[in-house]
């Protein structure tokens, strides 16, 4: 099972490390403390997992950014990491958007203090920028091969970490008949009830919502205008509430139907604990749109070993399952399923797997095209004419 494979890996690494060290004439197996981990492109570069762990412990801290505790169960992941390796974690700015994270890395280039992030977690569309502007350093985790090829950069500048699928988060206390399709949303019974969870000109979640609506109405990523038209109809029918939905607006009934990522909706369901009751529905018309996020190690990380250890942790089975516990589908999901590693009770809490099988992952080009069209046309097509 999983333990066997891990032990196998460990033995392999020990063997490699031991061989290297004896070849160099060093002493008994242990960390090569003179190695500069900021140049490591994989754990083996620096002498294997044990060396990495020792070097990280010597550094003592990891600085993260943009990791809210309730997002993909990062809270538990961070705590587990802390106890497992005895490191401190310095959490910056949980509110940061992807743009913020990149700015933070750039602004802190010369800074080796507690304010510079070691690792980042950004939207898929930012991948190319990470390479172009030299934001991240290429690194391949030990489980690199089980990450699907279309969501990782071949050299490891960025790699997908988890994905989710868009659907409707419905507060059933305020809505009698739960809508099952995009077409349902236009019905008069949902007047003043439908909202987005972000501003379509800035939020990836909202933009993908428009894409999803487009796919359900004959459009595509290359031409999302049917999606814009859909929201225009929604607005004209009075069903669309222009406020950005948050926990409070859902709970108070102001925005009882929100188009949301599955992991956010399901986490809400748990947090609200029935007050109000939440149901999550993946609409049956159209194709579910999946959104991927990327991990990267900052090229200027003050704690390079800790940063790499964090990645190894996240991409180990343990880390991946922690994400799954937060309802985010980890990028190695198919691999975990194939090896039968997912606990049954966890699997039961997730939405049915068929929806995910159908889900479509937009490519970088598609993301870019649709984003431009939607952000430029949202105001003219849907927006209120405020003069």
């Amino acid at each position, binding site marked *: 099972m999983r333990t066997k494979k891990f032990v196998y890996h460990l033995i392999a690494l020990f063997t490699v490390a031991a061989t290297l060290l004896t070849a160099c004439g060093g002493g008994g197996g242990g960390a090569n403390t003179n190695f500069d981990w900021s140049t490591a492109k994989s754990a083996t570069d620096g002498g294997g997992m044990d060396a990495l762990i020792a070097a990280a412990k010597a550094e003592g801290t990891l600085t993260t950014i943009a990791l809210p505790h309730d997002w993909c169960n990062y809270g538990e992941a961070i705590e587990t990491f802390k106890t497992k390796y005895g490191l401190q974690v310095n959490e910056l700015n949980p509110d940061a958007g992807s743009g913020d994270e990149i700015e933070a890395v750039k602004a802190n*280039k010369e800074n080796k*203090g*507690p*304010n510079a992030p070691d690792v980042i977690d950004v939207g898929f569309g930012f991948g190319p920028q990470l390479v172009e502007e030299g934001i991240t350093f290429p690194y391949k985790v030990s489980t690199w091969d089980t990450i699907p090829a279309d969501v990782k950069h071949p050299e490891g500048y960025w790699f997908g970490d988890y994905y989710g699928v868009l659907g409707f988060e419905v507060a059933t206390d305020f809505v009698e008949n739960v809508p099952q399709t995009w077409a349902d949303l236009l019905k008069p019974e949902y007047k003043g009830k439908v909202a987005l969870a972000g501003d379509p000109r800035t939020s990836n979640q909202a933009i993908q919502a428009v894409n999803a609506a487009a796919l359900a109405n004959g459009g595509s990523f290359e031409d999302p205008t049917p999606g814009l038209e859909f929201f225009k109809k929604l607005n004209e029918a009075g069903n669309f509430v222009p406020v950005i939905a*948050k*926990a*409070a607006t859902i*709970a*108070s009934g102001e925005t009882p139907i929100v188009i949301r990522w599955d992991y956010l909706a399901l986490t809400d369901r748990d947090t609200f604990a029935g*007050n109000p009751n939440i149901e999550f529905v993946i609409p049956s018309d159209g194709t579910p749109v999946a959104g991927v996020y990327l991990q990267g190690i900052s090229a200027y990380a003050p704690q390079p070993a800790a940063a790499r250890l964090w990645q190894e942790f996240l991409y180990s089975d343990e880390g991946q399952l922690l994400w799954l516990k937060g309802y985010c589908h980890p990028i190695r999901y198919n691999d975990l399923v194939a090896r039968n590693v997912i606990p049954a009770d966890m699997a039961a809490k997730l939405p049915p797997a068929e929806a995910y099988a159908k889900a479509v992952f937009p490519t970088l080009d598609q993301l870019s095209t649709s984003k431009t069209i939607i952000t430029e046309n949202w105001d003219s097509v849907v927006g209120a004419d405020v003069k």
Partner: protein
Amino acid sequence: MKKNVFWNWFWIFISLVYFFIPLYATFNFSLKARKGELSLLAYQQMMEDPRILRSLIFSTEIGLLTILLGLLLMVPTVYLVRLKAPRLRPVIEFISLLPFVIPAIVLVFGLIRTYSGGLLPLTNNYTGLNFLLIAGYVVIGLPYLYRSVDAGMSAIDVVTLTEAAQSLGASWPTIMLRVIIPNLRSAMLGAAFLTLAIVLGEFTLATFLVGLKAFGPVIWQVGQNRAYEASALVIVSFIITWVLMGLINFVGRRGAADGSVAAGPR
């Protein structure tokens, strides 16, 4: 006279209604944490979070230091400009309004970039970061600090007072401490209130410089998923800020009893 008092109470009443209702609505929502009944569950849950008290204390300390630095910079400057260099006044005033048009996000990244290395590295340690935060807050509070102090000074005849004090043989420090400042009490208190309120609620600078150590980011974090707790937190922080201001007010006004030169009609 009677008619005057009626109108005064009218305006007070209308304003109270306008201010009170949204607060009540937030309070009402915070009581709904337990389904179907009104309870203080949200408040209990909120109190159990250690970050809240810690960050509140931290932000209050930062706030007090900001007020100190801000007034220290502002009062002598406004005084001197009024007295000796009235032509500088438009310049200072324009500068004081600039923070409005510089978005906090630009300011904070600018501060981080400028002080990340080179001559004056401040971002390498917590003390430096705290200092950057205070400096940033003074900048953000500049419009309010300037306007309060300037409005206060316009209400007293700075020139005559200074002359009178000088003709009695007072030195500059004496003039400042015993003539000008006592007459600015009300304006300085106003400036203190505004600054403290800004610091306690501010988010952008705090989150990039000190993260969850400050109150603003903690409020935001709580508000992301926990709807009822967030509203409870809003109400509680409102009350706490109000009490803090009451304290400043009390301490400030107590000193006013010791015969400051009468500038106002009271």
